[in-house]
């Protein structure tokens, strides 16, 4: 499932890029995400906790970052295995920082979310809603962090 989002903010592109290219800070802004140990240059262990009312799923997995300094673009790829046999989740999120003059910056976010297992089967469209909401919160947190 592909989700496109983005925002424009009154901040210099360099500041925005400095934040978005720092894996640990990005992880802080993702709701429910927890960054673990660094596995290699680009990869960390990590966890994700999603709670929707009585329904709660915890994923354990890895997060990898691919930075493209020249394009000011970062691809975050998170892969997790749900605890208690709850299936898998994989998210690829590509963010690009585009300068509009010196003080205005646009960030585009393209995400692709693949959820398998019982949540995808029984979710009645829930994954779509939850993914969108998480992304919106992320954008909100990002905006706040840059303000």
């Amino acid at each position: 499932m592909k989700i496109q989002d983005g925002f424009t903010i009154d901040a210099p592109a360099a500041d925005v890029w400095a934040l978005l290219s720092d894996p640990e800070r990005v992880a802080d802004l993702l709701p429910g995400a927890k960054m673990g140990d660094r596995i290699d240059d680009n990869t960390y262990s990590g966890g994700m906790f999603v709670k929707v009312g009585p329904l709660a799923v915890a994923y354990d997995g890895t997060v990898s970052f691919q930075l493209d300094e020249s394009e000011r673009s970062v691809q975050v790829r998170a892969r997790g295995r749900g605890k208690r046999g709850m299936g898998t989740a994989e998210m690829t999120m590509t963010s690009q920082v585009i300068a509009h003059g010196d003080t205005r910056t646009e960030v585009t976010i393209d995400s692709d979310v693949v959820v398998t297992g019982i949540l995808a089967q029984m979710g009645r469209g829930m994954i779509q809603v939850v993914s969108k909401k998480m992304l919106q919160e992320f954008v909100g947190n990002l905006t706040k962090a840059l303000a």
Partner: protein
Amino acid sequence: MIPPQFDYHAPGSLDEALGLLGSLDDPKVMSGGQSLLPMLKLRLASPANIVDIGRIPGLDTLAEEDGFLRIGALVTETQLEQSALVALAYPILLDTAKVIADPLVRNRATICGNIAHGDPANDHPATMLALGAQLVATGPDGARTIDIDDFFFGLFMTLLGEDEILTEIRIPAPAPASGGAYVKLERKVGDYAVAGSAVQLSLARDGTVASAGIGLTNLGITPIRATAAEDALTGQAPGDDTIAAAAQAAADATEPIPDRRGSIEYKQNMARVLTARAIRKALARAGG
């Protein structure tokens, strides 16, 4: 399918229940268990503790008092269906109860549980929105009343605190010349709604609509109150054009999620069609 491990508690009083909710790790309230137990069996939920309020005396009120119909936490759908009072004065509640799951589930499922679960696909929320119900949440500091309009705020998310129990629903007794109806479209009997529309209205002496409440099921991430649709009816003579306008306003208030039950467009149109039907049925019952 086998539920995960948990501890089970059956308090004998409301105070004891509230004490358990305050002291236990990761507690979950259960009344009829007809939504919770399937989730446990699918291991979609795994609370450490279940607090079964089913043995608490005094939570089974189903009666009209002080201008309200009071529905206690343990009143089952079947009790609602079998109530002469409900059939006579609150036919919209009977409509709703009759289309929830199946008769066997309804023997254990409770109305309060249906509301507290916060599922936008459940049927009672729309009806309670249409009826302008008040919810009594009892917590460690006593009872508070929550307006149904404020109760649902996200997918499966309600204002009910984790240390609170939804102990009662209070529905204002209908004005004279009132009528209500719940119309649900389902893929087959017992299914969650493709869409559902609850309409409760009252008529003025001149035949115009004096008041209207409209709630919608499974047409967004929360149950929806269609206020624009209510406004479109209120004060109007309920002719075809008015009904069509109100039904369209109800459709416009929806943000359905596309799934196996249909596309966004289909569901929005069903909001329109079902609302028009519910209005007509409510009008007929109001004697209009």
